[in-house]
């Protein structure tokens, strides 16, 4: 321990200026944060713009500091004086890690405690969450900085390595442009990738500190990149993708009954361009919807379209991610999928046999309670405090350490007492309630420098044909039904659409659907929850304040 402190003191003496710079940036960050909790409109002055980049500056300052500290006893080369001095590699590594803890993690930890205090969140109760955040920071910044610093001799070399690795990662992330099947990854492969990268990072650090085998370390890095790349391709394998989204079983039934409604399509004006500004056109396919069980919520998680073209060829879109939420009360849905422009152009006026695959995530909705917008504020689970952002008809919500867990909000909005802009009158609302769903139920805290998490809650409601939704206003006294959700299972369905004409399903502008679908029966707007459309199991009557 004595030697660890001795080496640390030497590093601090050498790099005190870089440390001070990082502390100064952190101090400005702490000073600036409360401004974000109160100011609504973005401030476009130069200084404010610079402040937006403080997290980036902090990362750079810390990466610089850590790199310089590790490179003080460079692990590359054979001329460093310390190589023939009585350094123990584990003491050296411990000294550098100690420096990272004291010079990076400790100031940030203290800053985060201060921010919690300033935001009136309980400080002690947040400590374990903060420690988890620091574990994430350690794994995502400290350890990678150690890796880069341990295989390079100078800041210049380290910068080049970072740029190189960044380009490699960018290349991997862009692979789905070349291989469309990689757009959608099968379950659990992200976790395996993270484990591979973590093992590689730790291995490189140990190899460098214990043996200084830089070439071997580069081999580890190359192997981990190759393994990551291989996993990307494996996870894009259609067979594996299908396996992670199984067909329905008795235990995991299809949560919704879908019928392709070939009687409706978009109406285009003569000569109307369907080229979406030269991009690949998007098809929206109309389905009638029925049978969403009460106490359930369904998310369309993936869409895949297969076409048997008139030329005899087969075309597939491969799986694409989606996120549309279906709640009881919905009668229609229009899954959306992009078709390659060349395929569309060749087949726009001909009839092609189409087959749609849909993947659903099914969530259970727990017993609900009613909550109210009080003045311009709202309380959500996990001590989440929201204020009304009048400008954008949404609630800005703040919570400590992590965003509120998975929940859903329903509301019969707009209502008589809380109406939207008058121009919406021409486009009536669907019967289904306005909804906001946050479906991430991870118990881990969110990784961010600030412990005050900001999320936006905005309810949106489908219009009459349920082909598009619009945000609804929130007013003081608006009643919302809040319920926790829990993920149940993923299931997929395969639907033959028969012969379709693809151009019929490219949305027209303005959107015009033929034939006109009967509008839902009009009802008197109300500022209380409509018990007609919300599943009875979801309703818990609470007295109005």
């Amino acid at each position, binding site marked *: 321990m*004595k030697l660890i402190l*001795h080496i640390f003191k030497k590093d601090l*003496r050498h790099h005190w200026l870089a440390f001070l710079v990082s502390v100064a940036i952190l101090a400005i960050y702490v000073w600036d944060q409360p401004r974000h909790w109160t100011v609504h409109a973005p401030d476009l002055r130069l200084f404010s713009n610079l402040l937006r980049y403080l997290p980036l500056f902090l990362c750079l300052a810390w990466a610089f500091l850590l790199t310089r500290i590790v490179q*003080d006893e460079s692990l590359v080369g*054979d*001329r460093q*004086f310390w190589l023939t001095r009585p350094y123990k590699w584990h003491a050296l590594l411990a000294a550098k890690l100690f420096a990272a803890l004291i010079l990076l993690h400790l100031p940030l930890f203290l800053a985060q405690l201060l921010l919690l205090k300033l935001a009136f969140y309980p400080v002690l109760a947040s400590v374990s969450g903060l420690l988890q955040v620091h574990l994430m920071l350690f794994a995502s910044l400290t350890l990678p900085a150690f890796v880069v610093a341990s295989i390079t001799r100078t800041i210049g070399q380290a910068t080049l390595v970072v740029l190189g690795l960044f380009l490699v990662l960018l290349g991997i992330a862009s692979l789905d442009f070349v291989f469309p099947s990689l757009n959608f990854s099968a379950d659990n492969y992200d976790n395996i990738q993270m484990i591979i990268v973590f093992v590689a990072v730790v291995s490189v650090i140990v190899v460098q500190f214990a043996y200084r085998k830089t070439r071997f370390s580069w081999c580890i890095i190359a192997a981990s990149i190759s393994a990551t790349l291989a996993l990307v391709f494996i996870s894009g394998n259609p067979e594996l993708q299908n396996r992670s989204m199984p067909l329905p079983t008795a235990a995991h039934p299809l949560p919704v009954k879908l019928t392709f409604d070939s009687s409706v399509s978009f109406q285009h004006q003569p000569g109307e361009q369907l080229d979406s500004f030269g991009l690949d056109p998007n098809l929206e396919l109309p389905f009638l919807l029925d049978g969403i069980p009460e106490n359930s919520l369904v998310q369309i998680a993936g869409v895949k379209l297969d076409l048997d073209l008139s030329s005899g060829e087969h075309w597939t879109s491969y799986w694409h991610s989606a996120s549309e939420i279906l709640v009881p009360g919905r009668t229609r849905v229009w899954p959306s999928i992009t078709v390659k422009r060349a395929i569309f152009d060749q087949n726009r006026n001909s009839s092609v046999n189409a087959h749609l695959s849909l993947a659903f995530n099914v969530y259970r909705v727990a017993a609900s309670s009613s909550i109210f917008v009080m003045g311009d504020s709202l309380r959500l689970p996990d001590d989440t405090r929201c204020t009304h952002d009048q400008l954008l008809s949404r609630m800005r919500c703040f919570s400590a350490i992590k965003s509120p867990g998975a929940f859903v909000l329903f509301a019969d909005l707009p209502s008589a007492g809380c109406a939207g802009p008058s121009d919406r009158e021409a486009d009536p609302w669907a019967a289904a309630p306005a909804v906001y769903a946050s479906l991430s139920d991870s118990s881990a805290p969110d990784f961010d420098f600030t412990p005050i998490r900001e999320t936006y809650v905005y309810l949106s409601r489908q219009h009459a044909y349920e082909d598009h939704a619009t945000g609804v206003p929130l007013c003081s006294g608006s009643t919302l039904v809040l319920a926790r959700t829990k993920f149940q299972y993923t299931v997929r369905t395969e639907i033959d659409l028969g012969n379709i004409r693809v151009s019929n399903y490219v949305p027209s502008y303005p959107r015009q659907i033929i034939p006109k679908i009967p509008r839902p029966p009009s009802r008197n707007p109300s500022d209380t929850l409509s018990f007609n459309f919300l599943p009875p199991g979801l309703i818990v009557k609470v007295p109005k304040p």
Partner: protein
Amino acid sequence: MNRPIETESLGKNYGRVKALDDLTFSVAEGGIHALVGPNGAGKTTLIKILVNIFRATAGTATVLGADSTSISGKAFQNIGYVSENQQLPLWMRVGGFLKYLRPFYPTWDLDLESRFVQQFELPLDRKLRHLSRGMRMKAALASALAFRPKLIILDEPFSGLDPVVREELAQALVDATAYSTSFVSSHDLGEIESLATHLTYLDSGRLRLSEDVPSIRARFREVEVTLDSPVAIPPDLPSNWLQLSSSGSTLKFIDSAFQQDTLQSEILHRFGTIQHAVFNPMTIRNIFLAVAKSVRKPS
């Protein structure tokens, strides 16, 4: 331990290039053991294998009784190493540098440190980056000697230094023989000839010579023999006769295994009567030149 350094069939390849080839030698305890050889002979490679900066491709090396591949951490509390191209923490002041190193060595001798500081006239408050090459070398040497290491390994310590600094460093090394063995490499024999007690000569990665200095001096003689009549040089002469040449009835060569009686009878046996024979002792420098030439152009 009477052999601080021992190697056995030591080899090091850089790709196809053999930097060290089948090197077997040892360094006796005490004294100053000089490792000499021309540039590129493999001296630095050998030293870096001994201090475990490089790994040997073949063979073994033992330093202070331990396999060189295990030399690290605590083992360096007994080894003082200084190299001409060592990268020192240039941002440190001389005093700070010495102070920083103290806790690493339980045997650090503050009095000895002060003596070196005085002897070398080291400016304690000046940063290492602002020191001349000679002063930097002196600071490095002070830091490598102040803990009284059992083994001092110096790689070209005198290279590029002025004679005064060289003399100061040499004196420090001589003083250190009281408690340690020094292993000092140099490409310039003249730098080290005066203080070496033992010599090892490397050339093209191969060991050519490794003995104590008196034995080398005793073994080599410049021989000039005047015969009765001119002679041609016969083909099968003893291998210890180096650089043989004849001019008229005069024969000149260097005997690398000199014993006067044996040599005289060998000459008589091969050439008949001798009019006159002179056996001149040689300087170490000339001995090494002769060895080097004989290796490159076998006579």
